[in-house]
């Protein structure tokens, strides 16, 4: 996780020899290849990375297009099919057909009880989960940049204060904190007697994950900034009279994009699983709002009661594929940025 941030510099000189006042041998090629371009070229060669990127992109597309897909499919995740189509369910509310009621009409079957359509529920669930996780990631990245780069650049007292804050937050057991604090955070917004609106749960989920999610990134950015601050090109900018704001914007930030991108690709799937865990435990998103993780809660009950694994199958497999693909993507991104660390 804490791979030390390395700045680029491993490139081999390609522009001819030492003395070369006139036109070089490849004088026609004027455009240089930026470190970012080189990274992209290396990444494209990595087949695992490209496939993972497509898989990850596919999930985001599903989440984005969920309303459109369900419109074409002709169903939505809120229709209580136990009432609409009672003939599909037995007296206990379990679908009559085998495998959770999978049919040409209900591709992934129907949920026991209320009889929600599993397919639309899953795509809407993915939509909810990814939306929350993406928001947490953005919040964490922004916080990590602001606090990490500030600590690294300013040093001294600011660094000390931020460092202790990070230590303190890291000492809190995250899982326990999430479970314990979710109801508390929610109750800050609504009185326990009222119905909790969904957006309050979403905001609370984002808030607690953000609060305990930014430290590792903040630390890495602090370290990267600290080592960049010693580099002579920063001093060169200062000798020319550059403001701190310009130095951070033009000299430091472009050089921490690498650790930032690599860490973000590791963080996002973590937030997805953490959110799923909270919803599974009942402190995250609750019915009837569809959610990836919360589907497992229902599925596990069914697994025990009916000995039927169908309900675990679709959310489970899709999430495993998503998390694995995202982590492989993270590895590929890291390797592409830092060819020396490649296996």
């Amino acid at each position, binding site marked *: 996780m804490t791979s030390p941030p390395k700045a*680029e510099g491993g490139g081999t000189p390609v522009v001819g020899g*030492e003395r*070369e006042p006139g036109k070089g041998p490849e004088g026609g090629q004027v455009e240089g290849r930026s470190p970012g371009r080189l990274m992209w070229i290396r990444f494209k060669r990595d087949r695992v990375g490209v496939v993972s990127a497509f898989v990850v992109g596919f999930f985001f597309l599903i989440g984005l297009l969920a309303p459109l897909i369900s419109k074409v499919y002709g169903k939505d995740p809120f229709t209580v099919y136990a009432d609409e189509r009672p003939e599909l369910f037995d007296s206990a509310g379990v679908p009559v057909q085998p495998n959770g009621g999978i049919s040409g009409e209900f591709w992934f079957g129907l949920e026991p009880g209320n009889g929600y359509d599993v397919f639309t529920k899953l795509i809407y669930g993915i939509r909810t989960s990814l939306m929350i996780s993406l928001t947490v990631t953005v919040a964490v990245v922004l916080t990590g940049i602001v606090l990490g780069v500030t600590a690294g650049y300013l040093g001294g007292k600011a660094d000390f204060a931020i460092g202790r804050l990070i230590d303190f937050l890291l000492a809190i057991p995250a899982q326990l904190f999430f479970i314990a604090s979710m109801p508390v955070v929610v109750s800050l917004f609504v009185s326990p007697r009222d119905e909790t609106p969904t957006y309050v749960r979403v905001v609370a989920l984002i808030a607690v994950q953000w609060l305990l999610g930014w430290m590792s990134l903040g630390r890495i950015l602090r370290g990267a900034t600290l080592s960049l601050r010693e580099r002579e090109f920063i001093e*060169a900018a200062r*000798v020319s009279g550059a403001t701190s704001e*310009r130095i951070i914007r033009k000299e430091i930030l472009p050089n921490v994009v690498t650790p930032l991108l690599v860490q973000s690709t590791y963080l996002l799937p973590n937030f997805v699983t953490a959110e799923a865990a909270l919803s599974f435990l009942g402190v995250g998103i609750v019915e009837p709002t569809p959610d990836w993780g919360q589907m497992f809660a229902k599925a596990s009950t069914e697994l025990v009661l009916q000995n039927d694994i169908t309900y675990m199958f679709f959310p489970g497999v899709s999430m495993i594929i998503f998390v694995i693909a995202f982590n492989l993507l993270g590895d590929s991104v890291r390797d592409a940025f830092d060819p020396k660390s490649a296996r």
Partner: protein
Amino acid sequence: MEEEAVDVSKGVDVSKGEAAKGEATLPGPREAGAGAAESPGEPLLVVEKLVKHFPVKGGFPIRRTVGAVQAVDGIDLTVHVGESFGLVGESGCGKSTTGRLITRLLEPTSGSISYRGRDIAHASRKQLAPIRSEIQMIFQDPYSSLNPRQTVGKIISGPMEINGIDPTGGREKRVRELLEIVGLNPEHYNRFPHEFSGGQRQRIGVARALALEPKLIVADEPVSALDVSIQAQVVNLLQQVQKDLGIAFLFIAHDLAIVRHFSQRVAVMYLGKIIEVGDRDSIYKRPRHPYTHALLSAVPEVTLDGGAEETGRERIRLAGDVPSPISPPSGCRFRTRCWKSQDKCATEEPPLVRLSGNRPHHLTACHFPEAPTTEAREEDIVLDPALTALEEGEG
């Protein structure tokens, strides 16, 4: 290029530690300053009693200042318009700190730095703005001095952008000119630093320093990170730049070999102090301070065909390393490694003065100076026991 006769005796107080420009008496083969707008010989930069102590923190549980690294401890130097001034000393003796103080990357603990009569020792970034473009720096490490994420064009035009300078014809045209001046292909404008070799990167650094048309460039060991075969090329480039553009240089180096070809005046530094300063020939041919003798004997005498010439020069090997600048030796700081050291050296700090027998403006800080010659001695001075054993084994 014509050599200008400059009156050296401009009434500079020698005992104060400033040395006037003395090239008129000692016309070197590579005189500089011909193209300068100001008349050469005027002081451009005057540094007096400059001190920089870095606090050393320690203690538990409450961290406090427990001492100070006396990186620079009261130095005086003057750089004249268009002149190249060499600052030489072993690693860790405070040369880079001096350079960083002058470019105001660091704020001095005390002392004054006056640039064209203006004290900039404690000036803020805003106050420095008008002279920022006049004092530039060339860095030691070509791999860390260029932002890997910026194109060569962006790197070189950065200083112009910061200072809002719009040359006629645009910044890009100016950058291409600068690339040409430093011997690079102007077509490399859109390339990135990783596509260049160390020597080429250093040329880019030179172009960046020239972008603001400075009057003074602090070059902190600009070639010591380069391949020996490339060092000469970059030194030649700097020399060309200095000559053609009339820029004054504070040229920092860790040995006397490179400075010899570059600087009209040379100061030798040891543990935060200047221990000898003078005109080039005076320092190289008639050194007085034992440390200067030691440094000189380490310089290989390279002849034009590249072979090392074994002339009858003295050989001196110093023992060990420079002592810690946290607690430098009392009296003369060189006494722990000096073969002439006596009791007086431990109790009394030698002042930097013109010794009898020294040429004008040649100042030395030593109680028991050496003879002004670099002729071979009857016996080599080898203070390192390990080296002594080695030499005996060879013999």
